[in-house]
């Protein structure tokens, strides 16, 4: 079984919203039609997005950390939004675990959005159907794209590589290793939804300077310590060069 997912490194995310804009750009240009925007340049712009970057402040001033927190559909392994759908428009793909909405079957009853504790689904007010992150399913299998670009738009756009993409059921994949090595976790584990997307926590990055980092330990000839240390009275380098 494959379960494609994103792993988002909160230690690296700088909150630039590049994943938000690239997501919107890709998904508003696709075959499914544009994602609605209302008053995009007006006083109160609104519209459907699949991905948002939120900002939280953790701690008490002055000991605070600013955490940028990208949030999109988590493609739960046990998605509560799927069984509640009366038409079967909301479904989870067997092959790769992506949770999708069939826009042609959706009746726009919004019940699936009530059933998602993460608020990952948004109604497209123009098409009157539920929309959500597709994990760029129209990108990742596109044979016309170079292999390196068969990744979700948000992953491609991230300037700090805070977003990793892969199969979390494959223990050797980059995402599984990242989850293992860096204590990746799931959001709201209390509801048993088993989100496929994981988050990597903030990590302390202290600086340790060891003795051997000051002396060159990688010098194969080990000559660093053997350099001549001429006395003050002896000729300087200039004196030697001027011979």
């Amino acid at each position, binding site marked *: 079984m494959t379960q494609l997912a994103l792993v988002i490194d909160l230690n690296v995310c700088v909150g630039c919203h590049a994943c938000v804009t690239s997501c919107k750009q890709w998904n508003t240009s696709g075959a499914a039609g544009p994602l609605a925007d209302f008053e995009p340049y007006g006083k109160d712009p609104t519209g459907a997005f699949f991905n948002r970057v*939120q900002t939280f402040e953790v701690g008490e001033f002055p000991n605070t950390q600013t955490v940028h*927190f990208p949030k999109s559909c988590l493609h739960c392994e046990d998605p509560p939004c799927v069984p509640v759908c*009366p038409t079967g428009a909301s479904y989870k793909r067997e092959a790769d675990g992506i949770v999708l909405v069939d826009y042609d079957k959706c*009746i726009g009853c919004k019940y699936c959005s009530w059933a998602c504790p993460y608020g990952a689904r948004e109604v497209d007010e123009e098409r009157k159907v539920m929309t959500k992150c597709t994990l760029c399913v129209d990108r990742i299998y596109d044979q016309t794209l170079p292999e390196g670009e068969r990744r979700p738009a948000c992953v491609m756009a991230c300037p700090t590589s805070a977003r990793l993409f892969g199969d979390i059921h494959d223990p050797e994949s980059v995402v599984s290793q990242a989850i293992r090595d860096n204590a990746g976790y799931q959001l709201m584990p209390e509801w048993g939804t088993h989100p496929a997307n994981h988050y990597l926590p903030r990590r302390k990055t202290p600086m340790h300077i060891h003795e051997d980092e000051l002396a060159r330990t990688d010098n194969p000839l080990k000559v660093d310590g053997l350099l001549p240390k001429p006395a003050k009275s002896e000729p300087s380098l200039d004196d030697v060069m001027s011979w």
Partner: protein
Amino acid sequence: MRPDLSVLLLTTLIGAGQGLFLALFTVQLYALAGLLPPPSGHAFYAHGSLIALAFLVGGLIASFFHLGRPERAWRTAAKWRTSWLSREVIVLPALMGVVFLYGTAHLAGWTPVLATLPSGLAIDATLALGTAGTVLAFALFVCTAMIYACLPFLREWASPLTVLNYTLLGGASGFTLAAAFAVAAAPELTRFLAGWAFVLTLLGAVSRVASLIRNARLKPKSTLQTAIGIKHPRIAQKSMGFLGGSFNTREFFHGRSGAVLRSVKWVFLLAAFAVPLTLLALAGFGAPAGLLVAAFFVQYLGLLAERWFFFAQANHPQNLYYQAVA
């Protein structure tokens, strides 16, 4: 959650329709057992069924306004194995059909005996249809309530009390409606129906107050800590990621102040329970029967307020992610 008028109308209208049908069949069963004089003629059952059907159809029509794509509503019967909404969509038309046949059978006097019990009791067509309708009416109460009660993280809803409330409140308004209807159609049944309406309204009040007490004691399971997975006691959102609103900021909050919420609670406790109970009791002691009509309208409006409060009180955990604009 944001209360949507179409859903408030759907749940209250079909509740009253189901209750009215149950009241009609209760009268038939009592008459069959010889505990009540049978209503003169078949107009009581036939016209009563017509009114019940009108309420059910009204609820169905209201529900379409909740859909973004009502033209695809026929698809909703597909996932009855997993979705309570799908089950409701199947049971509601089935109940409508049975109510229609029940009324027609009474109107036409179509009462062929289908079977005879060993005790000598003859099961005729209206009895069989009434039994089927009763099963469907209770099934519909369960389906409607389970749409809400099956969502574990909407903790105000995820309780057996939700199912009990929908059943009792629908039954109460239906029996009050039946009592008001009996004033015109079968005055000899008025006191009987008003009595049952009183009992059901009282039970409904007990069960609804029980759920209010339960909900007041709920402690949130999801917190900002579990929502973003950072274990620190002090977390504050600085930005939800956008300045204008979105579906997430509109759909999951009632948009009113806490004071409005509290007033609506008292309004529905008075209008759905206290006032109808008084009016039903007065009617039982021989006050003008017109009070029963007033009792139904007050109770119906009270139940609309009750349903509004039911939605508004439910606090969706996704709201944790949408607390500060910037």
